[in-house]
């Protein structure tokens, strides 16, 4: 029975912890109270069946458990000092949807605390909001249990020392929080999709949890096109997970991927979400990126890719986010339309900005190979190897170097 109930607890956790954090103004108390309530639910629900509104049951039980804990603990004084008044009795029913959405957003925003570095923000969100164990998070980040435990403890301390406002946010503040939280979720996915360095290319746990959190934002903010587009973007990338590595553990480029291995249920859902996002209107960076990913997903083979459309999307994205990385992607699309010589020339201006970005050198290496400048191609690929690529990337690049060396030897 407990497997089934635990799936329900996992599903309720973000909302429950969010509401309890508002009540107790303290994440640790909220987490302990929720854990107590789940323990109780295991006994009661196994006997009487799950209630029709599991969240309301868990919240009411957790609130009482939390108050009990506080009465007993020394933490009480510290936590009470953060309240301007005595605890408001929490209504037995679930908070209304407006309140709930601000609660969850606040909790996620607390995890994006500015004093935490990005990876610690992601780790704390996985621990507190998603409820992954420290061990699971440590394996996701390829660090030792002890290291992760210390990082999470330190992060929680920083959060407690400098709490976020608990008042209902203004629309502008809400928008800012939503932007910050969406970026954290996007980066959680990216970290899973291309690990910073290490033996594996992907860590699907991070990708799946980022999708779950992104889905939660869409449920809470159904009229925000950018959040629907973010979910679409993540699903479109995630759809390629099975095609992205070959049997030898090498990375397969988008052009060479077996499109039959793409997850078409993910693509269908993403397409629906993107259409919905585009209806809402506002064309932000996530909508544009999702539209680019959708253009790839629509092409039944690499040759049928609509590169002109993709180029125009990247140009629009560059207008919103004039960064060197976006420009590099624009040039990659232009390479398909206007050829490698044109693209190589265009990359020259980015050499300073992207000197330590391994994809810059990998792309240049590929273009140099295409124009037959194998000496320069080898140099570019060697630059990739010096920038701590993942093991699968290293294997792919080594193979490319061999190809160029062979070409040079044949001459």
């Amino acid at each position: 029975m407990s497997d089934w109930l635990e799936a329900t607890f996992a599903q309720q956790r973000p909302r429950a912890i969010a509401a309890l954090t508002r009540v107790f103004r303290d994440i640790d108390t909220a987490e302990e109270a929720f854990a107590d309530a789940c323990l109780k639910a295991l006994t009661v629900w196994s006997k009487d069946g799950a209630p029709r509104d599991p969240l309301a049951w868990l919240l009411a039980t957790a609130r009482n458990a939390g108050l009990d804990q506080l009465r007993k603990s020394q933490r009480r004084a510290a936590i009470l000092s953060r309240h301007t008044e005595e605890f408001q009795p929490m209504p037995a029913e679930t908070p209304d949807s407006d309140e709930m959405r601000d609660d969850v957003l606040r909790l996620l925003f607390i995890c994006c605390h500015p004093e935490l570095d990005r990876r610690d923000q992601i780790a704390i969100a996985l621990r507190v909001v998603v409820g992954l164990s420290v061990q699971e998070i440590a394996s996701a980040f390829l660090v030792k249990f002890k290291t992760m435990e210390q990082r999470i403890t330190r992060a929680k301390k920083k959060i407690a020392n400098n709490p976020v406002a608990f008042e209902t946010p203004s629309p502008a503040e809400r928008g800012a929080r939503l932007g910050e939280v969406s970026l954290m979720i996007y980066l959680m996915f990216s970290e899973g999709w291309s690990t910073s360095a290490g033996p594996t290319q992907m860590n699907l746990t991070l990708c799946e949890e980022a999708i779950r959190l992104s889905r939660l934002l869409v449920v809470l903010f159904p009229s925000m096109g950018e959040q629907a587009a973010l979910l679409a973007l993540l699903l479109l990338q995630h759809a390629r997970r099975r095609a992205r590595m070959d049997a030898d553990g090498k990375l397969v480029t988008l052009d060479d991927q077996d499109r039959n291995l793409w997850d078409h249920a993910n693509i269908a859902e993403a397409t629906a979400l993107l259409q919905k996002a585009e209806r809402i209107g506002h064309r932000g960076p996530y909508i544009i990126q999702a539209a680019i990913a959708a253009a790839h997903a629509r092409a039944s083979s690499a040759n049928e890719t609509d590169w002109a459309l993709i180029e125009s999307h990247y140009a629009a994205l560059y207008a919103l986010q004039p960064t060197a990385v976006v420009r590099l992607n624009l040039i990659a699309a232009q390479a398909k339309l206007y050829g490698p010589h044109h693209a190589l020339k265009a990359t020259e201006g980015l050499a300073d900005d992207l000197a330590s970005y391994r994809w810059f050198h990998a792309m240049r290496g590929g273009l140099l190979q295409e124009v037959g400048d194998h000496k320069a191609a080898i140099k570019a690929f060697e630059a990739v190897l010096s920038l701590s690529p993942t093991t699968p990337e290293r294997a792919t690049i080594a193979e490319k170097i061999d190809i160029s060396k062979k070409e040079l030897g044949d001459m």
Partner: protein
Amino acid sequence: MIYAITIYGEPGVFEALPKERRDEVMTGHGALQEALKARGEFVSMKLMPPTSAVMVEPAKIEGAAPLITDGPFADTKENFLGFYAADFKDLDEALEHAKMISSPIARLEVRPVSWAGGAISSE
């Protein structure tokens, strides 16, 4: 009589299950689909998550166009997830089939259909 077996549950809970449990649920659906296929025509649909939904609300003013909104608001309670429909001999037979997909994460409703068109028709 055509009966619809409609499935209600909370989106996301199935995905949070460990793989063996998900397989258990899918085995039930596989068995039901096989059984229905053996009997004749049927319809089955799994809906995408409610996040992909758009609502068409009736116009507030008479004669105005219906109002299209971006979807149901944060609702943590049960959602309509999908359904099966087929022609059954009687309620008992419909219930026997519904039992095949019963699991702790879904509530099923077995309800007679008063009109159906398309692949299975009540005409």
